[in-house]
């Protein structure tokens, strides 16, 4: 832990805060009926995206999932444009054409969220192949869930990356559920990282609520990938604090799928609290300084909401734009 500098630690914390406050705001807006479509929040999983992306350069690539807001922010995305996208506005990342599950920011190497479970995995392999082909030392990361690890695309992609020794880092965010199905029911194994062995690839398990731990594991994987050592599968054990999608409670109409002891265990492992404690204990910053940071983040999120609200709807002419080049 001592290797990580204070500035990195604070950076990790701040990125996590941005995600948390952004997502909380999104949850509230959804409840108020202000956001169209489906919304899947990253609350509880912040340490994964942030820990990994902090180990990346601006020109590295990531691909993401249906639960992708956190990845965009972790990679350094613009919350104004993201919020506007969630509102379906013309000033959004995708001009209102993508929405929550299809946000991309190619300028920061964020090659897209994806509504298809597992759909982003092969795309990251292609980005890794491209980096290797072009002789850069860029790496490509793909985020995906425990549920996605049962898709054929996972298998084919990891094997392909391993055989071609590509600079790809596969980050499985194991939050214990694919929608309402527990991971332990959807697979007969405890650790998804063990699947790395099936591809002759490095595999590692990390506590996904501990941003520093994730960061250090990611740094190692990134170094190996840059050096031509090939791909790594990182399994980050994490949890989502909320439901699979916003509005879930009403949708499930009283049906329950999570155990009370599980909810209690995860409440005790909030990634922001863990990091907060670490920072204060190591005197990297004071509680007060962190609260100030938090307030600034909240202000930024609020102004993102204003930006989104005040942005125009896309106009009809845009319907036939962004088609064939």
């Amino acid at each position, binding site marked *: 832990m001592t290797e990580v500098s204070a500035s990195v630690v604070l950076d990790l914390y701040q990125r996590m805060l941005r995600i948390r406050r952004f997502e909380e705001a999104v949850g509230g807006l959804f409840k108020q009926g202000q956001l*169209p*479509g*489906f919304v899947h929040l990253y609350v509880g999983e912040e340490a994964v995206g942030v820990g990994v992306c902090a180990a990346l350069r601006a020109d590295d690539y990531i691909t993401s999932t249906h639960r992708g807001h956190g990845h965009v922010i972790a990679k350094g995305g613009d919350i104004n444009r993201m919020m506007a*996208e969630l509102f*379906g*506005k013309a000033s959004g990342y*995708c001009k*209102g*054409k*993508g*929405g*929550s*599950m*299809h946000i991309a920011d190619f300028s920061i190497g964020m090659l897209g969220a*994806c*509504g*298809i*479970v*597992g*759909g982003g995995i092969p795309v990251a392999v292609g980005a890794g192949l491209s980096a290797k082909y072009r002789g850069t030392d860029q790496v490509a990361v793909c985020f995906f869930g425990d*549920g*996605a690890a*049962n*898709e*054929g*695309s996972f298998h084919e992609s990891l094997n392909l990356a391993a055989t071609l020794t590509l600079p790809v880092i596969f980050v499985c965010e194991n939050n214990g559920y*694919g*929608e*309402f*199905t527990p991971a332990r*029911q*959807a*697979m007969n194994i405890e650790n998804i990282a063990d699947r790395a062995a099936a591809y002759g690839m490095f595999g590692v398990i990390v506590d996904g609520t501990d941003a520093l731990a994730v960061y250090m594991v990611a740094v190692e994987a990134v170094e190996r990938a840059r050096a031509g050592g090939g791909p790594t599968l990182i399994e980050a054990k994490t949890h989502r604090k909320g439901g699979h999608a916003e509005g879930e409670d009403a*949708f*499930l109409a009283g*049906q329950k*799928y999570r155990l009370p002891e599980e909810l209690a265990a995860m409440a005790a492992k909030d990634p922001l609290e863990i990091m907060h404690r670490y920072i204060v204990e190591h005197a990297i910053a004071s509680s007060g300084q962190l609260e100030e940071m938090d307030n600034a983040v909240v202000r930024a999120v609020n102004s993102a909401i204003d930006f989104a609200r005040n942005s125009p*709807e*896309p106009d*009809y002419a*845009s*319907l*036939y734009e962004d*088609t064939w080049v």
Partner: protein
Amino acid sequence: MPRKTYIQAIQEALAEEMRRDERVLLMGEDVRLGVFAGTRGLHAEFGDRRVIDTPISELAVAGAGVGAAATGLRPVVDLMFGTFLYLAFDQIANQAGAMRYMFGGQATLPLVYMTQNGAGSSAGHHHSQSVHQFFMNMPLIKVVLPSTPYDVKGLLKAAIRDDNPVVFLNSLALGGKRGEVPDEEYTIPLGVADVKRAGADVTICTVGATVYTSLAAAEELAKEGISAEVIDLRTLSPWDKDAVLASVKKTGRFVAVDESFPTCSAASEWAATVAEHAFGDLKAAVQRVNNEDVPMPFSPKLEKAVLPTTEKIVAAVKRTFA
């Protein structure tokens, strides 16, 4: 008659057929709790054995349906959203849709793939596509897309009893739609269209959610003295050519309305068939109303603009009078 929602009608159809026939089972992602609410409540009644939650593995689950159907069961495989069938396309096309013929009649595959079709949740392109045209193209697969609670119940029950593979599409936009559904047992034969509104001047042929858009258009047109007949095909493969051709014989005008990408669509098929077999009856060029030819945008404003609308249908009908 009691009024029920489209989703309730699906639940009833599944429950009744599972009660009726021990060989019927349900499998898919989260069918117990019902991410697609049509499967909700079945686990409580039928338990783990007959209501099987699977991993997120569309290809294997679709293929497991084939193996189960080939060996004596009558599986209903829930694949949630139409686009997820893209991952299962190989097993549906090359196995379910081909085995019986390829093996010289040895295989019988009483198998239903159930999923939601079309747009309606403003969730972006990956959750807003129509897929019926792909499966209509495959020779041995039946395709159903009902528009009312009454139809969805009767057709789903018939699909489950059918000995052929059926892609059973629920219209995503219609889940909450209410309509009369009798408590008594009934089925609706696959392949038979339903005239949802009789008319004399123009035939509007459609299916699924655009039945309502077409009915609204017919209402508008009536105000202008144009009497439109709205045919709801209900089953897309095999489809009721006779009903459509008979209607065109009467009206002399034809408009195909189909929520999907335009090219090689169901509307293309209907329009081509009418042009081929009812040319002599036609007083004007056939017309098509499809989605605009772009992926589905997220913005609700743009989504609405992409879909067939009452205005577009009215305009298409008027072109047949120009």
